[in-house]
């Protein structure tokens, strides 16, 4: 799938920057270098996660490879008080707002559910694995912010596949009706597991907004500056009480759906090769170097930092300093444990003591 003629692009494939009259960038040189740095960190940590999965330290991994610009650019537009509702692949969003990558991996180690980070401190809600079901949460959270006059924005991350669900469409409607301050950020990586977006969306996804009464815009999802500028503007609108926006970032999932997937069964190698050429990092590197924002030595230093980060992620996974205790499964089911559950917990403890004593 190719970009819509109306798509916003600040950084072209060859690294040329062009201002957009409606989407001013408004970033300092240091901010721009910061975006590049995050792209590199996310790419490197993602590769490390794939390796960790292969070596058995993670049960599963959903790679970000290829989608770094969409995640970093959009998340960089978040401000304190804003809230993001991720789907399941938004590792790069968490890293961009400064969550410890190891905390984002604990779910994939199979030790906890939802997420290992502080939602309040990070502003990132838990992963949502049932596709599309986080969209109404984002709308409702936005309604709460609005009632409390918080002037903050909510961003709902949605895959292209999520646009098959009723929840997402009902959320678009609600957001427009109640002017909930939501940015629906669709990371269109062109596949929902094996289903290509051409087979699930008869028209470009951003155009679905119109019928629900909210603006929609497509942005080049491999252009980190474009993703930032478009999200920042939508978030400003939301914070100012002007209502929701649907943003479609067109990108591509270079890797498998997850480490259990075999994409050769459903897509052609030359399509993947074409999109590899449109790598979001290469064009940004060309730009920051060409514009004289950084030297090669600066880039090397960033690569070095990414290595250190990857090493730390690996160490945290391998050491597993606080493995989860089985008896914790009985905690947090309710505020007060009901009789039947307390009885099960006691029986479980007694049974385990008994079997340990006899073995």
């Amino acid at each position, binding site marked *: 799938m190719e970009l819509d003629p109306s798509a916003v692009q600040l950084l072209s494939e060859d690294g040329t920057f062009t201002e957009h009259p409606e989407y001013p960038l408004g970033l300092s040189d240091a901010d721009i270098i910061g975006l590049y740095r995050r792209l590199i960190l996310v790419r490197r940590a993602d590769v490390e996660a794939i390796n960790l999965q292969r070596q058995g330290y993670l049960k599963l991994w959903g790679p970000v490879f290829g989608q770094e610009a969409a995640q970093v650019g959009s998340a960089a537009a978040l401000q304190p008080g804003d809230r993001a509702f991720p789907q399941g692949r938004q590792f790069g969003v968490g890293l961009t707002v400064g969550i410890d990558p190891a905390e984002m991996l604990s779910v994939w180690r199979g030790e906890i559910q939802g997420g290992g980070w502080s939602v309040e401190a990070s502003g990132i809600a838990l992963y949502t*694995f049932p596709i599309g079901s986080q969209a109404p949460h984002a709308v409702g959270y936005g309604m709460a912010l609005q009632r409390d006059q918080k002037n903050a924005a909510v961003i709902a991350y949605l895959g292209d596949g999520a*646009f098959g669900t009723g929840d997402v469409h009902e959320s678009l409607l609600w957001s427009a009706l109640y002017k909930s301050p939501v940015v629906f950020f669709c990371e269109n990586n062109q596949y929902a*597991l094996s289903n290509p977006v051409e087979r*699930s969306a008869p028209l470009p996804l951003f155009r679905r907004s119109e019928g629900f009464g909210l603006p929609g815009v497509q942005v080049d999802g491999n252009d980190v500056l474009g993703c930032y500028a478009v999200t920042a503007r939508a978030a400003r609108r939301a914070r100012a009480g002007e209502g929701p926006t649907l943003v479609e970032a067109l990108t591509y999932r270079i890797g498998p759906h997850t480490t259990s997937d075999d994409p050769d069964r459903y897509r052609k190698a030359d399509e993947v090769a074409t999109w590899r050429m449109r790598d979001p990092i290469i064009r940004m590197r060309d730009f920051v170097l060409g514009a004289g924002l950084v030297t090669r030595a600066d880039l090397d230093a960033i690569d070095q930092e990414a290595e250190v980060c990857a090493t730390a992620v690996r160490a945290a996974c391998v050491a597993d300093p606080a493995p*989860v205790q089985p008896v914790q499964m009985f905690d947090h089911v309710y505020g007060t444990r009901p009789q039947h559950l307390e009885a099960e917990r006691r029986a479980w403890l007694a049974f385990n003591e008994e079997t340990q004593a006899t073995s």
Partner: protein
Amino acid sequence: MTTFVTALNTALSDSMKADPRVLLMGEDVGDLGGVFRVTDGLIAQFGEDRVLNTPISESTLVGAAVGLAMGGYRPVVEMQFDSFVYPAFAQITWHLSRFRYRSRGQLTMPVVIRVPYGGNIGAAEHHSDSPEAYFVPTPGLKVFTPSTPSQGYALLREAIEDDDPVIFFEPKHDYWMKEDCELTQREPNAPGARIAGEGSDLTLVGYGPTVKLCVAVREYFAQEGVSIEVLDLFKLNPLEINLLVGSVTRTGRMVVVHEAPVFGGFGGELVARAASDCFAALKAPPLRVGAMSTPYPAAALEHEYLPGMDRIVDAVDASLRYGVTT
């Protein structure tokens, strides 16, 4: 040797060959062949006309199946994992299960909803549930769950030929189970339960993924000179209650095993039937073994959460020792 996946795949293929009105619909059921490969090769064999690789729209998958059934088709819907059937719960309980009743027999709903269920595969959240207790009590709905490849074949073909809607729970942990068997159809309306191993001291009841555990427990006790009868319930609704009542009346003891949490689980229905229909014969209170009454936990904890052989053995022991003073 035939795996569960091959048996189910063959059942789909044979049903589609036998009846051009059988359609498959689901997420990733096309070129990928489904995440468990149950539909492998079917899109190549039958074309996109009969194998619909759909968007992620579980509610509409079932709702559209209802409409297709009204139009004379026999849709087989695949849910990718157990808990993703929940968005379709309303269509199933409002419509699929009720059209025969509310049309006073004018309409039938020959729809099968295939649901891989159960845990023990180290999966992510929402990929390991055993939701049968949400569906079994729904009037008008049938609920099947095979425990072996050959049974899977026969039961799926029967479900597709049935004019009533069937929720077909497939024990996903056993997709790679192998059996030396022939794949043959059963007679229509054959009983929905079988004795998977005869015995006289206690009736151990399982279904789907717990049948293999019950059989292993039976072998374990055989070495101790205890004779256990294993009952495999492959239809939870309609329930073959006479086989259960007969067995428990003979043995006087019953233990039910399922992967779903015990509290409010289907085992409660079986225990209630044993208590009311076999009261005089009971030598010990019927017991249930199942998962803890918590949400399905993270994968690292699932072995502590699910009923394993050790907990089944413990329950059988407790039943056998009941009333014996040492």
